[in-house]
């Protein structure tokens, strides 16, 4: 059964994609964040451009920092953003 994942973007990722969030239907055989990023990169050139250098991106699943190799499993929200620079 396909799942719906909420994807949120921040900072220049949000600006360059022109949106802060989207809901996406995830194929049942999709495993990691990396797989999802690959899938998105094939969908449209702006994804391909934003995801071109993965060393510049960080990820959180259900509001916990994680690595691109993490399995999405039953997470409800994936966040994609540049390294944080607060404080």
């Amino acid at each position, binding site marked *: 059964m396909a799942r719906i994942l909420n994807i*949120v973007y921040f900072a220049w990722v949000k600006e360059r994609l022109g949106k802060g969030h989207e809901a996406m239907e995830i194929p049942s055989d999709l495993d990691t964040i990396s797989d999802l990023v690959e899938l998105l990169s094939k969908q449209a050139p702006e994804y391909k451009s934003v995801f071109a250098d993965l060393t510049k991106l960080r990820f959180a699943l259900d509001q916990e920092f994680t690595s691109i190799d993490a399995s999405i499993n039953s997470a409800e929200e994936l*966040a994609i953003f540049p390294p944080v*620079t607060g404080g």
Partner: protein
Amino acid sequence: MIKVEVYADDFDAGFEISKLSALGCGAVASFIGLVRGDGDVEALELEHYPVMTQKALRDIAETANGRWPLHGITIVHRVGKMSLGEQIVLVCTCSDHRSAALDSCSYIMDRLKTGAPFWKKQWFKDGRSEWVEERQSDLDAKGRW
């Protein structure tokens, strides 16, 4: 007593510090980060990931609380657009011992720089804007704990 607040308005650092001073411990340390006029910067804009921010800051505060004998921790972080000289963040800790207060305050700031979902954009006098990049010195600072 852990207090974590994230909002757009400016805060009264003296008031926040005095509330921790009133807890009856002997040592209160604090750090205030402000918008500094690097080059032609005239404003700073802070974006964050609201659902995650509170949680990330609270986790950092709780880790500090487990590492040092603290009576109180206050973290106030602003978001939105701020002009030169405005306050961005306050971290205040109190303990019976000065080293616990000072070290935990440094620790929280170092963790906050790399472990809380905030992104800074610099606005320049000529109207340009630019997202601030991750700094190696912040990663190094986090690494020392």
